[in-house]
């Protein structure tokens, strides 16, 4: 009866059609949450659809009103229960009555069939009945175990988790095969292609190696978040986490224990082992990617403080003293460096010792060094040569041989032919991972991505060395210097790998050219490189693989087919384990076999793009062009390891360091960003300390985003924005397990320098000026602010904010100007009506706040504080000022919000507007600044009064009506003329009904008998239907039924047609007359159905033609308008 608050949760609030996209729900980061979310949403949607269906039915009133269900939730509950019972009953029936008992192979399996499948969902239901499974008609996360479908729309694939709730999405073939095998087969091979088809694609393979590597090793610092990688790998990410967490056997050591170590004076030993920097397992070679996924980086932890340091690690330290980290740093920082706890430089160190980070940031170094290259490519696009004349193109792929090892051991001749691997730690018991191994080591089977302990088991003599980032940098620079010297078209893939387009640049044999380059590289860097030469990038890359180590290979066009024929499909980029398995099932293991399959069937089986890729690659076709580096779309940094905070202060400190890091990266790339996303991994409530030491464990992923109008890369601004976002999380600092900051909507720094920076600086400076003045207020205002607004933010956060964000009410005009220059044009802050602003719901408020770059909240709290102090006078002033200024507010959406509000506010004054509907034409009206006495429209004129007037007077009145003066008078005339006969009709029929012939009197109404007596089949049918319709007595329901019964042949009778039409239309007229005043809806529905019937039958056609003018007249009389009958 009255408004009572719905229990609100974030999941359910945004279900309306109009609702804005909930950024967190679609965010892949949010995988953990989305399962419950998805199913809930799905359910709700269903309920909504149901609502629609019922409400739209023509007989909605009758069916809906009598519904015994209070709401659709209970309706669905009952329906589901009924379906379950039905199913159970049928299952019982089939097992009892069945001639032979079938093995319940699907016991415990409960399927939900989505969309069209072969066999049909009913067949599948039958199978489940027979074989002891369950079948759900409606998706529910709780009941369903498998989703069966043949095809998924793209939107569902993209947002798979919210669709499936994490359940396996399986092809129907699984059920068929299981039945054939008479046992429950694993669903894994039957997983829907679209779903499992997310292994790295070619674009990744050739493009940013490092980026894909980052994505894979997603629990490690992310250097550059690559968009392509993100979308394609997102799905698997979460599972990976879990997998990783599960495989860890290593006992984790508690923090306290760890600190004890330090105090024990075992510093030396401990420090060597405990110094941790995130490492990655292996080179980002696509072939290794899969392996990499399952593995995990873990720095081992000493089990006991007394355990002596292994000799290996001592050796390591002495050997790696060329490294950039001085030993003293190790000692000093290491014990604390494990976590964010107590290490102020955690972020810095974290990234400093990350190889991923090195690769990621190498690119920007490279771009700095060769800033012209992208431009060059654009001007001399190799596109033409690549596609038009393939025989002439010549691509060289050059790759350093085990770069990370080779660079380190070039100064250690003793180790030259010994097995060497690079890793972070050399504890043989540990689970640190090998990131690169040289060829002697590979002979032992040592591979990248392997745990050190496994590698040592394979090869006890293996020497493990640490990274030497400085040397890597140096060699990479030399490497590229040489390449650029020889060739203009260089596409850098990684620090040690590049493509050269030598089509134009060499006149002589590419083989010799390659030899020359290799020789020079060796002489300069003392490291070897391998080269593949072919007509396109794909073949060049494959050639390099053949050439390794320290060789070169040329695959000419003639040889392509030969080479490919026996090449295992696994070697092709873009084919991972899953795709390989699938192909193997089709007995395809080499490219030659793959070539036999027509493109169409490949595309059918594996999807359009994958199919095309397979078809092309198996023929060595690759039309990509050696080009420039893609611009990164977002820049960020993420730390998910070792994050532990004692309190809010810690986390803030950490955040500010992260801001510094990201700001540095932005500046390093010469870009600014407008969109800031803060991701936080929050420990789940019931999660224990993760098995992986200092890992993030089982986490909820939260993310908030803020967009500011002016792009920035300034650390101060960034910091302020991030603090504000962080405040909105309401999170206990102790629960945080990972923090990521990502900046997108990047702009070139030079371009945006002009306006963006100045404004932000202006803000900052004005903030600092005003800071002191309002300092006193801030505490108080904060309080009131929080109380009043239920705005999210923790106290410290807010104080930091209001201190930094403060802006004066009297802003200098230059700022206004700067604002008006931009496309988004919010009115100056000082023009805002604080009262309106404060009353806005938090979402809108934060949106507005974004538009003002965070100033609004401060302003609000400030003004609130002020107004409290100064008193009511001030408020009054402000309000009036606000009100008057609303009229010239800008066109932006956000402003509209308050604009509209303001308008409605202005209109409230009169409380209620009262007008007289049936005003006489001559009656005086209040003037609205004009001098019109007349009602402005004919619709306001009472037609009955008008028609009683003499004709001359009517014309006069019409001409006097302001609207008809302004417009064409002739338009008005037909209106009147058209109405006249109808009105006469009204009176005539009224007379009619006065006569004893009242058809709707009595029970049953008189017309029933009349209709029954009629010879017309249709009338008989209608009478019958009406009598059968029971108590509802609504003609619309009867006509609705007619729709299915009436056919053209029914009005085949020759005589009495006229009579029938007359009877019927008379009946309808009286019905209209009876109902028009009280139930226009019924009349409307009748007219709509009649119209549909009129297509089917001659009688209805004629009745309709008779009725419609009458109907319109009646509506016009009662409602002053025409019924919409389109």
């Amino acid at each position, binding site marked *: 009866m009255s408004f009572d608050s719905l229990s609100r949760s974030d999941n359910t609030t945004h279900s309306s059609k109009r609702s804005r996209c909930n950024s967190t729900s679609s965010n892949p980061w949010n995988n953990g949450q989305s399962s419950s979310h998805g199913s809930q949403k799905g359910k709700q949607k269903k309920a909504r659809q149901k609502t629609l269906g019922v409400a739209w039915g023509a007989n909605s009133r009758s069916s809906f*009103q009598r519904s015994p269900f209070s709401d659709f939730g209970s309706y669905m509950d009952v329906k589901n229960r009924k379906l379950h019972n039905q199913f159970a009953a049928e299952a019982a029936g089939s097992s009892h009555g069945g001639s032979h008992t079938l093995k319940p192979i699907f016991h415990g399996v409960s399927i939900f069939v989505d969309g069209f499948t072969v066999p049909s969902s009913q067949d599948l239901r039958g199978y489940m009945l027979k074989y002891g499974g369950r079948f759900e008609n409606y998706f529910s996360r709780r009941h369903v175990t498998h989703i069966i479908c043949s095809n998924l729309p793209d939107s569902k694939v993209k947002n798979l988790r919210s669709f499936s709730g994490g359940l396996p999405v399986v092809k129907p073939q699984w059920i068929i095969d299981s039945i054939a095998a008479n046992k429950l087969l694993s669903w894994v091979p039957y997983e829907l292609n679209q779903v499992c088809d997310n292994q790295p694609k070619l674009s990744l393979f050739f493009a940013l190696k490092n980026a894909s590597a980052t994505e894979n090793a997603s629990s490690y610092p992310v250097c550059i978040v690559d968009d392509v990688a993100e979308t394609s790998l997102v799905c698997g990410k979460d599972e990976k986490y879990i997998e990783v967490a599960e495989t860890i056997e290593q006992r984790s050591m508690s923090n306290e224990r760890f600190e004890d170590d330090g105090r024990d004076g075992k510093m030396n030993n401990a420090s060597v082992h405990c110094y941790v920097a995130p490492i990655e397992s292996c080179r980002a070679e696509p072939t290794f990617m899969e392996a990499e996924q399952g593995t995990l980086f873990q720095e081992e932890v000493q089990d006991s403080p007394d355990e002596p340091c292994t000799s290996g690690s001592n050796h390591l330290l002495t050997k790696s003293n060329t490294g950039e980290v001085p030993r003293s740093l190790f000692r000093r920082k290491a014990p604390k460096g494990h976590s964010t706890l107590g290490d102020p430089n955690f972020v810095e160190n974290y990234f400093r010792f990350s190889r991923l980070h090195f690769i990621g940031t190498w690119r920007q170094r490279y771009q700095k060094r060769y800033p012209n290259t992208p431009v060059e490519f654009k001007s001399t696009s190799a596109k033409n040569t690549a596609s038009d004349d393939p025989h002439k193109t010549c691509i060289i792929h050059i790759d350093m041989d085990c770069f990370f090892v080779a660079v380190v051991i070039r100064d250690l001749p003793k180790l030259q032919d010994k097995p060497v691997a690079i890793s972070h730690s050399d504890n043989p018991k540990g689970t640190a991972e090998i990131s690169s191994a040289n060829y002697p080591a590979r002979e032992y089977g040592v591979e990248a991505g392997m745990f050190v302990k496994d590698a040592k088991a394979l090869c006890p003599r293996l020497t493990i060395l640490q990274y030497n980032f400085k040397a890597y940098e140096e060699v990479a620079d030399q490497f590229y210097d040489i390449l650029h010297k020889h060739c203009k078209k260089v596409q850098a893939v990684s620090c040690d790998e590049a493509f050269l387009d030598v089509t134009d640049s060499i006149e002589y044999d590419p083989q010799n050219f390659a030899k020359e380059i290799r020789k020079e590289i060796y002489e300069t860097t003392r490291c070897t490189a391998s080269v593949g030469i072919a007509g396109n990038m794909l073949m060049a890359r494959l050639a390099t693989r053949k050439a390794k180590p320290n060789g070169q290979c040329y695959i000419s066009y003639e040889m392509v087919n030969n080479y490919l024929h026996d090449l295992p499909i696994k070697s092709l980029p873009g084919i991972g384990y899953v795709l390989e398995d699938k192909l193997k099932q089709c007995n395809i293991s080499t490219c030659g076999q793959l070539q036999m399959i027509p493109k169409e069937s490949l595309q059918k089986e594996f999807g359009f793009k994958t199919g095309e890729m397979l078809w092309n690659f198996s023929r060595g076709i690759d039309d990509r062009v050696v080009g420039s580096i893609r611009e990164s779309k977002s820049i960020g940094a993420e730390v998910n390891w070792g994050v532990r905070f004692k309190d809010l202060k810690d986390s803030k400190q950490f955040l500010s360091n992260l801001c510094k890091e990201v700001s540095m990266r932005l500046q390093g790339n010469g870009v600014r960003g407008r969109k800031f996303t803060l991701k936080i991994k929050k420990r789940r409530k019931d999660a224990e300390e993760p098995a992986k030491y200092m890992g993030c464990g089982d986490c909820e992923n939260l993310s908030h985003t803020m967009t500011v109008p002016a792009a920035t890369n300034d650390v101060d601004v960034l910091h302020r924005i991030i603090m504000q976002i962080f405040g909105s999380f309401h999170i206990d600092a102790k629960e945080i397990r990972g923090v990521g900051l990502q900046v997108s909507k990047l702009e070139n720094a030079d371009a945006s320098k002009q306006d963006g920076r100045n404004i932000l600086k202006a803000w900052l400076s004005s903030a600092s000026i005003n800071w002191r003045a309002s300092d006193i207020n801030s505490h108080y205002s904060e309080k009131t602010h929080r109380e009043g607004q239920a705005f999210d933010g923790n106290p410290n956060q807010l104080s930091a904010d209001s201190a930094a964000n403060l802006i004066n009410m009297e802003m200098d005009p230059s700022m206004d100007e700067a604002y008006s220059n931009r496309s988004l044009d919010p009115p100056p802050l000082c023009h805002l009506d604080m009262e309106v602003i404060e*009353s806005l719901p938090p979402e809108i408020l934060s949106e507005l706040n974004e538009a003002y770059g965070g100033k609004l909240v401060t302003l609000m709290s400030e003004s609130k504080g002020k107004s409290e102090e100064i008193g009511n006078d001030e408020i009054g002033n402000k309000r009036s000022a606000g009100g008057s200024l609303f009229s010239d507010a800008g066109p932006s959406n956000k402003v509209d919000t308050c604009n509209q509000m303001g308008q409605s506010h202005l209109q409230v004054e009169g409380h209620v507007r009262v007008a007289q509907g049936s005003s006489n034409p001559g009656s005086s009206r209040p003037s609205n600044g004009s001098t019109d006495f007349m009602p402005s429209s004919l619709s306001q004129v009472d037609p009955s009064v008008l028609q009683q007037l003499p004709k001359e007077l009517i014309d006069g009145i019409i001409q006097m009506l302001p609207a008809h003066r302004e417009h064409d008078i002739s338009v008005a005339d037909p209106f009147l003329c058209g109405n006249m006969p109808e009105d006469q009709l009204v009176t005539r029929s009224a007379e009619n009904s006065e006569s004893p012939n009242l058809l709707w009197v009595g029970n049953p109404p008189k017309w029933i008998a009349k209709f029954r007596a009629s010879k017309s089949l249709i009338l008989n049918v209608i009478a019958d239907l009406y009598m059968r319709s029971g108590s509802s007595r609504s003609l619309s329901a009867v006509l609705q039924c007619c729709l299915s019964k009436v056919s053209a042949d029914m009005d085949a009778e020759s005589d009495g047609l006229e009579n029938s039409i007359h009877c019927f239309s008379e009946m309808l007229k009286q019905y209209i007359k009876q109902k028009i005043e009280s139930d226009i809806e019924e009349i409307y529905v009748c007219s709509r159905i009649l119209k*549909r019937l009129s297509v089917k039958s001659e009688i209805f056609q004629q009745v309709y033609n008779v009725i419609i003018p009458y109907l319109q007249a009646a509506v016009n009389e009662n*409602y002053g308008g025409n019924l919409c009958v389109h």
Partner: protein
Amino acid sequence: MERKSKHNQSLQGEAARILVEFLEVAITSIVFLKGIYPPGAFERRRYMNLVVHKARHPQLSYYICSAVSGLLPYIEKGLVERVAVIFFERANVSVEKFVFKLALNQSCDSKVENTDLEFALRSFLTKLAASESLTKAIPRDCRWEITAYFRDLPEAGSNKDSALIWIPTDTKPWLQPPLITPIKSMSSEPLSVQLYLEHPSSLEPMNQASDS
């Protein structure tokens, strides 16, 4: 006789109160439906066991509430014929009206259960939520108001209220009788309500879903 009329009055009072409450919800739903304000300006509430939207902004909700509750005495007396929610274009031309046509039978003594009445009114809200396709897209900067049409003028002096204020209705007239699209009707004793849409007649073809 005396007692009976009193009984009638209380009955109508009850019905009128329910009606006013309903109008408040329905008008808010209309405003929400039309999307004049961002969806965030509304919060979900439960009314008559139905999810409805309520304006969050105090002024908006105050406007609606005060407008309809100000009508209560007149509705009780059966003076209010129609309550319209009118959407205006920029030039103050009304583009769409949601009209509630009310009829409160003064001399009725059949007792309708309040729950039944609520149930009937509830269907308005359900139908309303589903009738977005019938409505026209509103232009960007439009405004709206609630207007009540009286059957005849309330006697002067009976109330010094706002009902005495004369206000202009349309500044620009509609050339022809408007097109009416009924949304929902309900007739019962003592109260009957009809909700229909009024559009200016076919200046432009309406893009409505014609189900025939």
